[in-house]
């Protein structure tokens, strides 16, 4: 496929840059806050992979649904979950998008149809099948986008979900974030077939490999795929080749990869790559940085000011407090 790139206006490039910067700076702040023990538990950074979430989200409409992984700050922010509510979540506050019960790995926001935040590798894929099935049965033109890592492709749930979605021609966009490692396991040590689009195509669904460091390419591929899906084309698969610049989580000494390899990939930083297109000038970028910085300061302040759930409310939300929706 050579997806037709949408006409890239300065305005739009500015927007993409803004979104990627929001994620990058947000996570950089998270690292500090983790060191300061404001954030706890597992924290998985998306640094380096921002173009994937930003590009795909651009292709979605408000009614569409999103299912993500435990590395989902970027997806949540790009989808429109507010930085304050994401930060408050990681602070464990009631004002967090999951009331502080989920933490970094379980961001939820039903208002933007953001269905988590799933920390079981491949565990979200069947749910995406179901969301798409519901949309199809209800005759609604809704697309469900589901993100997962290349490591997830070895799991049985990947296989079952691909097959079901293709068999039933469900409106799902499968977004494989191929960052070449599952924790410390390199792709070639986990998959007998390392061409992931070929693998996906064996389910009889259209599958494309995309440069996941190029937000414009991601947006174009996702837009084409979403259009096709919305028009009844059944599930589509995108392999988005990307790289995480940071460790898997806060406890990873990165024994399994070369520093040089990381450095090489950093040359393809999605933020500098978009910059290099020359559509956004230096002063605009300075403006964006300032806006992002203010947004994150406000998010941290919001999180700090948030409240802790009372112990008396410990057992809430195990069952619903309202009747059937």
């Amino acid at each position: 496929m050579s997806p037709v790139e949408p006409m890239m206006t300065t305005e739009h490039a500015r927007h993409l840059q803004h979104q990627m910067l929001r994620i990058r700076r947000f996570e950089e702040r998270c690292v500090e806050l983790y060191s300061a023990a404001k954030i706890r538990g597992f924290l998985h950074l998306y640094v380096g992979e921002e173009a994937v979430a930003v590009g795909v989200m651009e292709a979605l409409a408000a009614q569409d649904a999103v299912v993500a992984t435990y590395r989902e700050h970027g997806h949540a922010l790009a989808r429109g979950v507010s930085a304050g509510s994401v930060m408050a979540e990681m602070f464990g506050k009631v004002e967090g998008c999951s009331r502080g019960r989920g933490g970094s790995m379980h961001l939820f926001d039903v208002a933007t149809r953001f269905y988590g935040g799933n920390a079981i590798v491949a565990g979200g894929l069947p749910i995406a099948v179901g969301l798409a099935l519901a949309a199809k049965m209800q005759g609604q033109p809704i697309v469900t986008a589901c993100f997962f890592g290349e490591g997830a492709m070895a799991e049985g749930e990947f296989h079952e979900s691909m097959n079901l979605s293709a068999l039933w021609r469900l409106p799902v966009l499968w977004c494989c974030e191929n960052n070449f490692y599952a924790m410390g396991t390199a792709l070639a040590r986990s998959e007998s077939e390392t061409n992931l689009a070929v693998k996906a195509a064996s389910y009889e669904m259209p599958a494309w490999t995309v440069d996941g460091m190029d937000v414009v390419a991601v947006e174009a591929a996702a837009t084409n795929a979403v259009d096709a899906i919305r028009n009844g084309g059944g599930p589509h698969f995108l392999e988005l080749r990307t790289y995480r610049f940071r460790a898997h989580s806060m406890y990873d000494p990165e024994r399994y990869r070369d520093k040089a390899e990381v450095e090489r990939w950093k040359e393809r930083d999605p933020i500098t790559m978009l910059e290099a297109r020359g559509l956004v000038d230096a002063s605009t970028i300075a403006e964006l940085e300032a806006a992002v910085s203010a947004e994150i300061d406000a998010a941290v302040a919001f999180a700090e000011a948030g409240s802790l759930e009372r112990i008396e409310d410990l057992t809430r939300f195990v069952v619903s407090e309202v009747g059937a929706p």
Partner: protein
Amino acid sequence: MKTTYREALRAGLRDALLRDERVFLMGEDVGAYGGCFAVSLGLFEEFGPERVRDTPLSESAFVGAGIGAAIGGMRPIVELMTVNFSLLALDQIVNNAATLLHMSGGQCHVPVVIRTTTGAGRQLAAQHSHSFEGWYAHIPGLRVLAPATLEDARGMLWTALQSPDPVMIFEHGALLGMDGELADDAGAVEIDHAAIRRSGTDVTLITYGGTLHKTLAAAEALAAEGVSAEVIDLRTLRPLDDATIMESVGRTHRAVIVDEGWRSGSVSAEISARIMEQAFYELDAPVGRVCTAEIPIPYAKQLEEAALPQVPAIMAAVHDVLGRMSTSVDGVPVLAETH
């Protein structure tokens, strides 16, 4: 009208499909085949392949799809052909169905109903004879039902579908052919309480599902011996209806639990522990348990029968709890027999 447990289950499914267009049934061979135990026979023809939806053999994905479809506004009834295969979908049930509401801080409701056939007794051997309902009863966020009567076979599904949260229904395979009378307009039944299926004064027998009828038979035989046994059908295994249990034990002062699960860590253990905690001072004897032998269920008929709870074992357990403390000196019990 005269009906069977199987037909009552089918009537419940049909009611649901007629009543609410968001409802659909999904599972392996629920459609063209007519249901592996003929429960859904005819529904495919009546409601079509969209609403009576055959799935490939992929338990994890189609249970997960049921969860997703529930979140997406549908009211799926997912059939896991038998509880034995439910292990393949367990991650979806435990980590998603039971957990999403809480993890999302109350946002993400999962109104899915998962039905499955449970139990042994048909010489299907070790991989096809599990009773895992007790395991599921361990999981916060799930409601676990075990219909043992025609009313419940038909009516529990209706009530379950009204829940905004996931409900699992365990239908016992050995009951499918059980027949009896059921009102034509039988409908929803409440699912919050256990039911006293037989009143008695000497001992409380607590059970559910497939062993209810064996327990009632034992109670009948005990009556002939002059022992008046009360029989409680738990109906809902999570949450347990402690009040009904304790009220009964408070009257009879003795209890035996009958449970087709393996003894260690079964539903029976939890009930015994709760009686310990809530009615210890009411007890005239330790609570007894009749469970399945702790072995993978063997194929050979005589071995399978010996492994499962049977009427004589229930009666023996009752004799045991009655035999103890037949005399009491200064509150110090005298043991008639121990085990």
